[in-house]
């Protein structure tokens, strides 16, 4: 479609909405389908309910009686019934085809002609003029041409389009992608470019798939391998490389809004996201490396806690939901969840419908709140993990349903202060226009899920800690209590301290014994009764030991002070005396209170045995989950969902080519940007689903296509006809993402730490740490400055990165500690094996730019190295700095 035509379409679409509907509304889905069918051929007056309906003053018509059809609408309706009886597809196109040549309103002009000329086919009074009728044949011919184009219907389930048959004389069609691309190049007068030079292609696919340069050895090996499958072998190796997961996880972390916890640094107050959310990041890396299906990933991110509640490894996936945690506002939390779930997975801007029905897409305001209802019950929590007794220090952060009956109200005009009480609570749901429904079944959860603090490993960790405490105390006091030389007061105090710790430990042991019996389901048995009695007895002993200890300790302290103040010792100053008196007073009070406590504790201890022990304070959660999120996730990944697979492959494509087939990757609606290769997108979506949603086969398909393997060097024809490379007549160069710039500076210097996983590295360490950049802290206000200068991820939303070129990037690459240190290390290393300046230059180009230096380049650099003012070593270091600043270093060609 040409630019001017697209422009017209948008104007028409906007015009439709400006005029709006006066009272009754036609079924929005039908109306939208009708508009889509005619697209730019529908004039604004016909993008209206009145094209098919008679005027009505009913406000919310519920049936055709309220809002009757005009003769055209009637014919259209009957055509649908006829098709249905015949068991045929009764979409709007088929129906229109049946009645196009009829004259429903009997004014002498057929329906299609009237429609194309902007006159109502259901209104006999509205007929084209004879001048207009002269235009009819041209108009009909144009429309027929238009109908032949691939009809992209993003709100209808994907059907795999046929692969076009295209001539292959000058261009190798390596796979179906190329056929689709070629099909659109030809009518635009464009020719594909030849394959890129081997070294260029190698660096491109390395950076694309694993985010790292090929090493000189890898370059040489590839250049030597002349077999026809040399490239495919590299691709397969890279896709199997764990560094692939690290590279592509960062892309998906953008789309899924990964953020480490953020908050007030002064007070450690968690305001956004949660600590330990890095486990979700690790789950993404691992899932990608294992080539887990995208469908399964969506299921687990939205509902791992409902899908497999006892599977801790996959519970990490719910970090997608945890990330939306917002201390300050549950309203915003819910809004973010609805907004970003719909944009990430189905490319729909549902948040527009928070305040009003969507102006462009088939989403009502009620749809918005029904989707919100899916999430209304959920909250976040941190579960204990083995080996750790304190959840504040480490744990598994995850989503769960907390308020099983939480109500979602419809906010009038989106204002939380005006909930629509008349409408009442809304049930969970999805936009009807996308088809399907939610099949919600509550899910029963195991004891271990509802009471995670009572898991065996938690008791083990607590016991281990208590035992350690006991050992430490014993190690401290044993030497004292048995040492005859130690004054007896001190010995008894040591004994009391040890006794207190031991009592606590024994009480814990006894308590856990009861818990284990209870957890095994043996409550109220004789065994339980005896254990419970013992637990209570142990719990009664603890305060006795505690009170004894504090009594002895206070008595000793008081004794010490009295000794000091005794008339036999040296006189003390008034301040010291005053303080001593005050201390004594406090100690006397403590002695008295300890005695009382002891008395009470002893009374309790001597009370008759009982089973009413005091249970441990634990975090307990509902034993059921609503099943709403699981139902939503299943609806999303249903093969009939029209958007999920399309949006997913578009994300993949966008990151291989720097632009999505639908360039607005988070908006497939009418306010987004139109697909450039709709048939290709549908074909890829079908391919994804048939490959069990596995992403590696799609990557392979894309990077082994001839389209991807094209050179990025310009051709005059291409530049003049398609300067933005919309039709892919060459491979589009692009700048590396921020993470790649940093990673490759370190990697080229041989210093990158490729370790997988673990907690985020503090953002202040950005220039010092050698870890891959995806492991550096990334949260609002806690970002690595170097990465942000290169358009690092906006943690708030980052569906697609737009690389900028600003002078601060030049400063960072030329002046930062990172680049200077790595340049020195690399210069030193390369000088070891390359004595001559020429050898050094060539080695440096191969290492940093992953290509050989040209003669011009060797000459220019050679002159630079012999500059008289500098020591040779220094000049070499500077040359490396310059190469890290080279446009070719930061560019994927």
């Amino acid at each position, binding site marked *: *479609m040409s630019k001017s035509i*697209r*422009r017209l379409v*948008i*104007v028409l679409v906007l015009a439709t909405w400006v005029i709006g509907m006066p009272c009754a509304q036609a079924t929005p889905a039908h109306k939208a389908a009708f508009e889509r069918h005619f697209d730019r051929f529908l004039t604004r007056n016909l993008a209206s309910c009145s094209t098919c309906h008679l005027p009505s003053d009913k406000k919310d018509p519920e049936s055709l009686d309220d809002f009757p059809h005009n003769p055209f609408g009637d014919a259209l309706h009957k055509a649908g019934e006829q098709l249905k009886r015949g068991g045929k597809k009764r979409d709007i196109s088929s129906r229109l085809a049946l009645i196009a040549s009829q004259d429903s309103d009997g004014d002498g002009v057929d329906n299609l002609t009237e429609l194309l000329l902007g006159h109502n086919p259901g209104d006999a009074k509205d007929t084209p003029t004879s001048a207009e009728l002269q235009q009819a044949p041209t108009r009909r011919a144009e429309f027929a041409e238009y109908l032949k184009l691939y009809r992209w219907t993003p709100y209808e389930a994907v059907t795999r389009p046929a692969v076009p048959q295209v001539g292959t004389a000058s261009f190798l069609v390596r796979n179906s992608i190329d056929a689709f691309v070629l099909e659109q190049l030809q009518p635009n007068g464009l020719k594909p470019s030849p394959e890129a030079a081997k070294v260029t292609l190698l660096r491109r696919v390395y950076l694309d798939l694993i985010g790292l340069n090929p090493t000189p050895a890898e370059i040489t090996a590839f250049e030597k391998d002349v077999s026809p499958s040399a490239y495919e072998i590299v691709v397969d190796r890279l896709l199997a490389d764990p560094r692939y997961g690290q590279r592509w996880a960062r892309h998906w972390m953008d789309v899924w809004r990964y953020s480490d916890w953020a908050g*007030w640094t002064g007070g450690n107050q968690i305001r956004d996201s949660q600590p330990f959310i890095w486990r979700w990041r690790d789950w993404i890396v691992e899932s990608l490396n294992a080539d887990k299906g995208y469908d399964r990933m969506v299921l687990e991110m939205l509902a791992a806690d409902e899908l497999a509640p006892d599977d801790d490894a996959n519970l990490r996936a719910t970090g997608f939901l945890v990330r939306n945690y*917002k201390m*300050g*506002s549950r*309203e*915003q939390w819910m809004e973010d969840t609805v907004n970003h779930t719909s944009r990430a997975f189905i490319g729909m*801007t549902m948040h*527009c419908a928070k305040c009003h029905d969507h102006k462009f897409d088939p989403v009502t305001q009620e749809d918005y709140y029904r989707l919100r209802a899916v999430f209304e019950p959920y909250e976040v929590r941190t579960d204990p993990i083995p080996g750790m007794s304190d959840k504040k220090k480490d744990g598994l952060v995850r989503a769960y349903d907390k308020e099983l009956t939480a109500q979602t109200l419809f906010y009038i005009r989106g204002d939380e*202060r005006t909930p629509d009480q008349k409408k009442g609570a809304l049930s969970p749901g999805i936009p009807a226009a996308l088809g399907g429904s939610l099949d919600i079944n509550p899910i029963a959860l195991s004891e271990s899920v509802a009471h995670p603090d009572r898991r065996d490993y938690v008791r083990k960790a607590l016991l281990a800690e208590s035992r350690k405490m006991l050992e430490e105390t014993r190690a401290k006091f044993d030497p004292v209590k048995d040492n005859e030389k130690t004054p007896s007061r001190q010995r008894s105090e040591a004994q009391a301290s040890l006794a207190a710790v031991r009592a606590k430990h024994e009480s814990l042991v006894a308590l856990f014994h009861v818990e284990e019996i209870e957890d095994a389901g043996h409550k109220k048995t004789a065994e339980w009764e005896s254990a419970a009695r013992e637990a209570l007895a142990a719990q009664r002993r603890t305060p006795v030991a505690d009170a004894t200890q504090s009594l002895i300790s206070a008595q000793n302290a008081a004794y010490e002070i009295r000794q000091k103040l005794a008339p036999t010792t040296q006189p003390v100053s008034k301040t010291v005396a005053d303080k001593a008196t005050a201390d004594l007073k406090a100690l006397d009070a403590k002695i008295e209170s300890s005695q009382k406590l002891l008395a009470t504790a002893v009374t309790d201890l001597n009370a008759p045995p009982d089973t009413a022990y005091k249970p441990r304070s634990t975090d307990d959660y509902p034993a059921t989950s609503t099943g709403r999120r699981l139902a939503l996730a299943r609806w999303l990944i249903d093969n009939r969902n029209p958007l999920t697979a399309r949006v997913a492959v578009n994300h993949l494509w966008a990151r291989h080519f720097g*632009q999505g087939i639908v*360039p*607005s990757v988070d908006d497939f609606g009418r*306010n987004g*940007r*139109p697909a450039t290769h709709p048939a290709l997108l549908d074909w890829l979506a079908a391919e994804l689903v048939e490959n069990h949603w596995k992403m590696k086969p799609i990557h392979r398909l894309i990077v082994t296509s001839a389209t991807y393997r094209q050179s*990025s*060097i*310009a051709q*005059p024809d291409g*530049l*003049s*006809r398609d*300067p*933005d490379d*919309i039709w892919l007549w060459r491979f589009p*160069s*692009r700048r590396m993402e921020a993470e790649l710039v940093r990673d490759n500076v370190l990697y080229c210097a041989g210093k990158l730490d490729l370790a997988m996983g673990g907690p985020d590295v503090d953002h202040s360490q950005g220039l010092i740490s050698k870890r891959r950049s995806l492991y550096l802290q990334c949260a*609002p*206000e806690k970002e690595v*400055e170097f990465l942000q*200068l290169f*358009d690092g991820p*906006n943690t*708030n939303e980052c569906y697609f990165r*737009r*690389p*900028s*070129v*600003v*002078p*601060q990037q*030049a*400063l960072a690459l*030329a*002046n930062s500690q990172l680049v200077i*240190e790595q340049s020195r290390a690399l210069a030193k290393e390369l000088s070891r094996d390359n004595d001559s300046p020429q050898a050094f230059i060539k080695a440096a180009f191969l290492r940093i730019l992953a290509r050989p230096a040209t003669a011009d*380049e060797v000459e*220019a*650099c050679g002159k*630079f190295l012999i500059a008289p003012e500098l020591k040779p070593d220094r000049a070499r270091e*500077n040359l490396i700095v310059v*190469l890290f600043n*080279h*446009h070719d270093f930061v560019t994927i*060609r």
Partner: protein
Amino acid sequence: MAHAPKNRKSHPCPGVTRRSFLADTGMGFTGLALGAMLFRDGKARAASAHEVPWTPSDGRAHFTPRAKSVIWIFLCGGVSHLESFDIKPELNKYAGKSIADTPYKAALDPEKVNKNVIGANPNHGNRKVLMPLNTGYKAYGKSGLIVGDWFKCIGETCADDIAVVRSLWTVHNDHGAQLTFQNGRHPREGGTFPTLGSWATYGLSTLNQNLPEFVVLGSPTGDCCGGAWTYGAGYLGPQYAGVRLNVDPKKPLPFLSSADAAITLEEQTANLGLLGKLNHFAGVDYPDDKDLRARIKSYELAFQMQRSVPETVTLESESEATRRLYGIDQPHSKSFGQQCLVARRLVERGVRFVQLFHGGGGGGDWDSHADIKAGHGKLAAQVDRPIAGLIADLKCRGLLDETLVVFGTEFGRSPGSQGTGDNAGRDHHPNGFSAFLAGGGIKGGITHGATDEIGFHAVESPHYVTDLHATVLHQLGIDSRKLEIPGRKRLDMDHGKPITEIINS
């Protein structure tokens, strides 16, 4: 004032040849052939033009601009409007009385109080016992503008140059409103939305060749209240975000000087010379690479910045009289005085938008919940002389005509007292507060809008904060509706309306 836009984005250039590439970008790192300052017009903007009836901003004003640059002064924490530019004698008259016992009890109508405040922090508001004014006041200049004694320098020096808007309101009663003041959105919506400075720099091309277009001075908002978002560019992209400069010639900007202090200027020049050569070799294969052109230019600008930025923040060359004018000779006003002086120097050197923060970090220094008398007194002394000096200096240099100065804060402070006795302060107050504007085609010596007699509600010509944004953009010659990005629908409230009553016709 007609200033021909100097540096223009050239049109995408199909058919660029190798030769033209070399001619356009100059060979090697030589003089600045900056006929077309391209560095910000990378691929992203060009690509968006595809088949959508929308083109990115071309850097030209939409109509004749009245101002070239903006100095946007923001005082963090909430300045009392009641004791600065919206003096309320009734507070003295009814001091100690509950509002409910005064003729102004209608102000407490909860519907009115909560009308615009969303997601209120319940710890704030509801201060009913009126507190008397904590400072005196006086009429100044021909206009007789009444100003609190805390700001007497501004009164004495600029009363006839400024237009006070006394009827602002905002949507949040906590310090997140600092973010709101910059981007018009409720703080909980975070940093997705561009701030005023980024809109201005997105809309207009640069006026200079050696400095960033949008500069931030002083200690910005703390991370509670927007942090870096308060000068961010949201969805416009980071190239339009403010660049923070420190008034310290040794380290004014991150990475401005080499991590290796031993690297000499000659070495740097030699490095950049080689880099320029190598990039041009690469350019022969990719003559149409807009990013490459942009990158070559960005290195030239970066190199210029290494010298021009430290020079701009070096104030030794300013006369003693000028330093005194800005209060740099006084310890309490030295720091902010230096920032104001740097702001003038930046504007002189063609920086489009200077955002000047005072009292940033945490909730903000001006947040005088307790002992407002001492707190505000001390803080006002830090800024009063410098701001008055800045306006006077701009005026005497003939720069005030083309420089728009704005004085703002996130909200006012409550007429009712928080606490009692000497320690009493005022609470947050989003329902009515003040800002003032000067220069850049703004009328001098006038007030616009009004709060009620106790300064509670904005009752006459109320303005949401984006009306200030619209006013600023209008003076810069920009129609914000023409800058909208597809897929980023802005609400009427985001755009705001220019306050025409204070604009010179």
